[in-house]
C-alpha cells in the first residue's frame, strides 16, 4: 500500500504540475499561483529521485508567476526567493544570480549588490563546474556594479573638478571602486565567452588610469584568441580603441580587414570603404571596391543609401578616369548572373523610386554603368526622374550615354 500511495502521489503531482503549466502558458497567473500552492506539498513528501527536483520546479514556476501576478510586489518576490535559496542548496548560486537580475531589472541596484556580495561569500563543499561558472559570473556582475559606482564618483569629480573643487574622500572612494571593479572584472574575461559588457567596462577603467598597454592586450586577446567565439564586437572594440589612441591608418585598416573577413556585412564596412577609397595605394582602393560590393551582396544592405552612394561614387570615378576598369569587371563577373534580379529588377525600380528617391538615384548610377542604358532599372528611374524634372537624373542620363562605350567594356 505504501507503494500504491507513492504511485498515486506521483500521479497527482504530475497532474498538478500540468495544471500549473497550462495556466501559466495561458497567462492565468492567479490560477497558476493557486495550483502552485498545492504543489508545494510535494516538497514534504518527495519520494522521487528525479533529475529536476521539486524545489527547482517550485523556484522556477514561483518566480515566473510572481513576475507576472497582478498582486505581487518586489517584497513578496524577495521573501519567496529567500525561502527558495534555503531549499535548493545545489542551485543556491543560480537562484542568487537570478534574484540579482530581477533586482537589477527593477532598478534596485544596491539590493542587487548586497545580494551578490552574500552569494560570493557562500561556501558549501566542493564546487561543481557549473557552480564555479556561476561564481565567476557573480563576481563579474559585482565588478560591473562597482564600475557603475566608479562612474558615478568619476562624474561627480569631473563636474566638481570643473568648478576647481577637489574632494579627496570622493577621489579615494572612486579609486577603491576602481580596484574592486578591476579585480572582479579581469577574472571572467580570461575565460572564453562573450563578455562584451565586462570587456568594455574594464577597458574604460584601464584607459582612464592610462594603462593603455593592458587595455590593448585585453582587447587583442578578446579579438584574436582562437578559443573565443568569432565575435564581431571584439574587433569593433579594438578598432574603436585604436581610433581613440590615434593609431595609424594602417593599423586601423588591418583591424577592419579582419572584421571584413569575418563579417562582410558589418556596418563599419562603410567606414572601411571610405578609408580605403581615400588611400593613395592602388591595392587599397581595389580592396575598397571589393568591400563595398561584398557588403551590397547582403539582403540587409539592399536599401542602404550610404552604401549605394559609396559604390556609385567609386564606380563613377573609375569610369571617368577609365583606369582600372578591370576591377569593376572582376567584381561584376561573379555577380552579373544574380545582381540584376536581386537589385535591379523593374519591381524594385518602381518601389525604390516611390519610397526613396535618393536610393533610386544612387542605384540607377550603378545600374546604368554596370548594365548599360537599356537596363530596366536605369530606364525606369531615369525616365521617372526626368519626368519629375529632377536635374541630377537628367545629368545621370547624359553621363551614362556619354560613357556607354566604357560601360560596354565592363559587361
Amino acid at each position: 500500500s505504501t507503494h500504491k500511495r507513492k504511485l498515486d502521489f506521483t500521479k497527482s503531482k504530475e497532474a498538478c504540475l500540468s495544471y500549473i503549466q497550462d495556466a501559466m502558458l495561458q497567462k492565468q497567473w492567479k490560477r497558476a499561483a493557486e495550483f502552485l500552492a498545492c504543489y508545494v506539498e510535494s516538497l514534504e513528501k518527495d519520494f522521487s529521485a528525479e533529475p529536476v527536483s521539486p524545489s527547482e520546479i517550485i523556484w522556477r514556476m514561483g518566480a515566473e508567476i510572481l513576475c507576472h501576478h497582478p498582486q505581487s510586489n518586489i517584497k513578496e518576490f524577495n521573501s519567496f526567493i529567500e525561502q527558495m535559496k534555503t531549499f535548493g542548496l545545489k542551485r543556491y548560486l543560480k537562484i542568487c544570480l537570478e534574484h540579482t537580475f530581477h533586482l537589477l531589472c527593477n532598478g534596485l541596484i544596491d539590493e542587487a549588490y548586497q545580494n551578490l556580495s552574500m552569494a560570493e561569500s557562500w561556501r558549501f563543499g566542493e564546487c561543481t563546474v557549473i557552480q564555479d561558472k556561476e561564481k565567476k559570473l557573480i563576481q563579474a556582475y559585482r565588478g560591473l556594479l562597482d564600475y557603475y559606482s566608479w562612474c558615478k564618483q568619476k562624474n561627480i569629480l569631473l563636474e566638481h573638478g570643473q568648478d576647481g573643487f577637489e574632494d579627496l574622500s570622493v577621489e579615494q572612494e572612486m579609486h577603491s571602486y576602481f580596484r574592486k571593479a578591476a579585480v572582479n572584472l579581469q577574472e571572467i574575461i580570461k575565460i572564453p565567452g562573450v563578455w562584451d559588457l565586462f570587456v568594455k567596462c574594464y577597458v574604460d577603467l584601464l584607459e582612464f588610469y592610462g594603462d593603455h598597454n593592458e587595455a590593448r592586450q585585453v582587447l587583442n586577446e578578446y579579438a584574436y584568441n582562437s578559443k573565443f567565439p568569432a565575435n564581431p564586437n571584439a574587433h569593433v572594440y579594438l578598432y574603436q580603441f585604436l581610433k581613440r589612441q590615434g593609431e595609424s591608418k594602417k593599423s586601423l585598416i588591418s583591424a577592419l580587414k579582419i572584421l571584413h573577413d569575418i563579417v562582410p556585412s558589418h556596418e563599419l564596412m562603410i567606414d572601411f570603404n571610405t578609408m580605403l577609397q581615400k588611400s593613395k595605394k592602388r591595392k587599397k582602393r581595389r580592396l575598397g571596391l571589393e568591400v563595398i560590393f561584398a557588403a551590397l551582396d547582403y539582403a540587409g544592405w539592399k536599401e542602404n543609401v550610404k552604401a549605394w552612394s559609396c559604390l556609385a561614387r567609386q564606380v563613377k570615378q573609375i569610369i571617368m578616369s577609365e583606369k582600372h576598369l578591370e576591377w569593376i569587371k572582376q567584381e561584376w563577373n561573379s555577380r552579373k548572373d544574380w545582381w540584376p534580379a536581386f537589385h535591379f529588377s523593374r519591381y524594385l525600380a518602381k518601389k525604390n523610386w516611390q519610397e526613396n528617391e535618393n536610393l533610386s538615384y544612387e542605384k540607377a548610377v550603378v545600374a546604368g554603368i554596370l548594365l548599360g542604358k537599356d537596363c530596366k532599372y536605369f530606364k525606369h528611374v531615369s525616365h521617372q526622374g526626368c519626368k519629375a524634372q529632377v536635374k541630377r537624373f537628367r545629368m545621370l542620363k547624359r553621363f551614362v550615354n556619354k560613357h556607354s562605350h566604357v560601360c560596354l567594356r565592363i559587361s
Partner: protein
Amino acid sequence: MEFPAALFPSYFVTGPPQEEGGPALAAGWGEHEQVLEAGPRCREAGTMFVPRRGGMGESWKPADAAAIPLLPPNTSYWVPSLEPQDILYRGALYKKLQPGKSAATLDFTKQLRHFFVDHPEDAFGSMGQLLHQNFFLGNSKLKRQARNSSIRMTALMEEIERLKARRGCPEQYLVPRLRWFSHICRDWLFEVPLGLLADSMHEELLLQAWSGGALGFSQDVAISCAVSCGLPDFVSVRSDYHCGVWRVPGRIGAAPTPLQVIRTDVPASCLTVSPHLPGELSVCTQSGAVYLWSVEMGLQRLRHDTQTMFFRDHSPWHWSDFTAHPRVLSCADRTGLQCLDARAPERCHFDLFKVGQEAGCQQGERVVLPMYLGRAHPSQHLVTTQFSVYVLDERLPMVPVLKWAHMMKAPPLFSHLTPGGPRRSHKVLLGASCTQELLLLQYRGGSQSACQLAGPPQKLHSIVGCLQHLPTQLPHHHHLLQQRLGAPAAGLAAALQKDGPQESLLVFQLSEAGDIFYQRLIHEVMEPSAPTLMDEAVAAPVPSPAAALRYRRWLKDFSRSHREHPQHTWPPTFSQKRIFTCRELEMSAGPSTLHQQARQQLRQAMQEGSYIQRWDTPLPQPPLVQLLEPPGGLDTLSARLTTAWSEGWCQWWEEKSRYNVAQRRQALRERRRQQKRARGRRSLSASFTSSHTYQSELSELSDVAPLPPPVSPTVLPRETAGSSPPSAVLDEALLSSQSLHCRGIPKERQKTLRDYLSVCAEEVPEPPEPLPSQASQACIPSSQSLSQASCTSQSRRKRPRMGF
C-alpha cells in the same frame, strides 16, 4: 546592417554536450538568464538593465474559446495514424502489467516509442528480423501457445481482401490491425516500381476508382512558398521523388503557371524558395545532397555527403534554406547547421550551429527544425530541438543569440514567423505534430539591441480543444470525433490582419485528417506603466454564437460525410428503401391497439429486465417476425398481417375482398387456358425461367381454391395439400398476386414481399446457408441478407415440386 553594440554575456565552451537529463520540467520558467546595460531610450525611462528573458511582450488575446473550423470537414478517406498500441501486442503483456499488481510499472509501449525515436535505424532496420518469428506466413491454424506471440499474415491478407469486397463494412477490431499492417508496409511500398504504380494508378483513374489512397501512401507532399521577391511569387511543391515550381501571378484569381519539375532518385527531404531571387530554390535529398536550383540555370550541387555534418548519428533527414547572402545556402541535419557558399562550396563554408556545448545543448539533443528568419532580420535563423528553441545570427556563428527551453511535450516540427515592424516584437509560432501543441513566442532585437525574449510564451488553442465546445454526442460518435479532431497536426500558418488601429493574428492549423481550423488573436495595446491586468481575462469559456454555428455546421457535414463514406468505425446500418416504397411504409393515422399493447409489454419487459417471449396473442409466432418488422410502425400491410396472426384475419379478409368469387374464378380459368396454350409452344428450358413466374402461377392457382378458413385444412387446394404447413398456405393465399396487385404493390416487389413473409411461415427457420457468392456478405447482419437467406431456403424447399 547594424550589429548590437553589446551582447549578453555567455560562456563559450567547445566539445560534445555534457549535460544529461532530457526534457527538464519547468526549465523555461523563472530565469532572466543574463542582463545587459539598457539602451539610451530605456535608460531615460529609468531602467538600467534589461533581461534576456522575462521582458515585456505584446499582449495577444485569443478572440474565441477554441479553434474554429475554417472549411467543411475534409471528406477524403483518412486512416487514423498508427498508435503505439497498434504495433505492440496487447493481450498477454497487458494482463501482466496491470497497474499496482507488479512492483515496477513498466510502460513498454512508451519505452519502445522512445526506442523508435532515439534509434530509428536500429528499430526499423532490424524490424523484420526482430519480428520475423512473430509473423506466420503459412495457411495452417496456429497453436494456442503460438497464437499469443505471432500473427497469421494470411489471415490478415484475407481480411483485407474481404474488406474490399465488403466495401468498407465496418468491423471495429480490424482497424488497429490494418493500421499496423499499413505501418509495416510503408517501408517496402516505396520499392514498388514507380512505373508499375503509375500504370495501375492510371488504370484505376480510368475506372474512376479510389486512387487518392495510393497517392497519399507512397509520397509525402509539402508546399513552400516565398513572398518577399515582390511580384510575382513562386510556389514550390515537393513530393518524395518530384519537385516542382509554380509561378503565381500577382493578380488575384489568376491561375499559377507551372515552370519546371525535377525528378530525384533519392527522396527529396526539403525544398525552399529563395526569398531573394525569383526562380531560385534549394533542394535537399535524403542522401545528403544539397542543390541550388535555378529555373533558368538548372541544378548546381553544393554538397554531397551521406555522413552527418558534425558527429556520426546517421539520419536521412536533411534540410536546406537561404541566408542573408543570396549565394549562401544553409544546410542542416540532425547534428547542426552549416552555411555553404554556392560560388565556392568546397572552400567557403562555415558552421552556424552545432549540437554541442557551444550552444549549451544536452546529450541526445537533435535538430528538429531549422528556419530562416529573414523576414524578421536578414541574418537570423531559428533552430528547434526536442528541448529548446534557438535564435542564431549568421554574424556570430555557433553562439545562439537566444535560447529557450520550450517545455513542449512533443518536438516542435512546424514554425511560422510573423515579423514585427520597428519597435515591435517578432512573433514565432511553434507547433508540434502528435500533441497539436501550439506556442506563441515573441522576441525582439538583432540590429540595434541584442536579442531578447519578449514576454512569457503563450499557448494557443489546439484543434482537439474544440471538442468540449461541441454539442454532446453519442459515445461512439464522440469517440469518432475525438479521433478525428485529435489527428496529428500537419502544418500551421498565420496571417496578420490590420483593421484600422486593431491588429489581429489569424493562426491556421492543419491536421493530418485534412481539416483546417483557425483562431484569432487580438492585439491589445498596453500602456507600459499599466500593470498587467490582462492575465485573468480568460477568453469566454463558451464559443460565440457565430463560432457555435460553425461548429454545428461542421459537425453536420462531418456526420453526413461519414454516412456517405461508411468508415470502419461507423456502426452497421441498413436501409429498407429497396423493400418498400415510402408510400407503402406510410404510417396509419394513429397507433393501433396492438401497437399500444406491444409498447406496453415492451416497457414492462424493460422494467423487469426480462425477455419478451411472445406477444400478447394466443397464436405462437416465431420471434424472428418481430425482429424483421420494419421499425417504421404499422402500415396497412403489417396491420393486416398482425390481424391475421391474432386470428381476426378471416373476417378482415372478407371485409376487404368483397367481390364475386365466382366471377373471379371464371376469369381465372380463362386466363389459365390461354397461358397453357402459350406454354405448350415453349421449350422446357424456357419454361424454367425463374421461381418468380412459378410462384406467381402458384399463387394464382391457390386463388382458384375457395378461400379456406384458417382452422379447417380440409378444403386446402390440391397443389399445396400435405406439403406445406397450414400457415404457409395462408400466406400464399394471402399473397396472391391479385390481392397484392389490388393493394397497389407492383409486380416486381411481390416476390420480395412473399420471401419476406415466407420466413414467418416456417416455424423453425432453417439456418441460412449462404451461397459462395454470398459468403462475403454473410457478415452483414441486416434484413437484406436475411431475406436473401430465406429466399434461398425457400427456393430449395420448393424446387422438388417444380417437376424436374
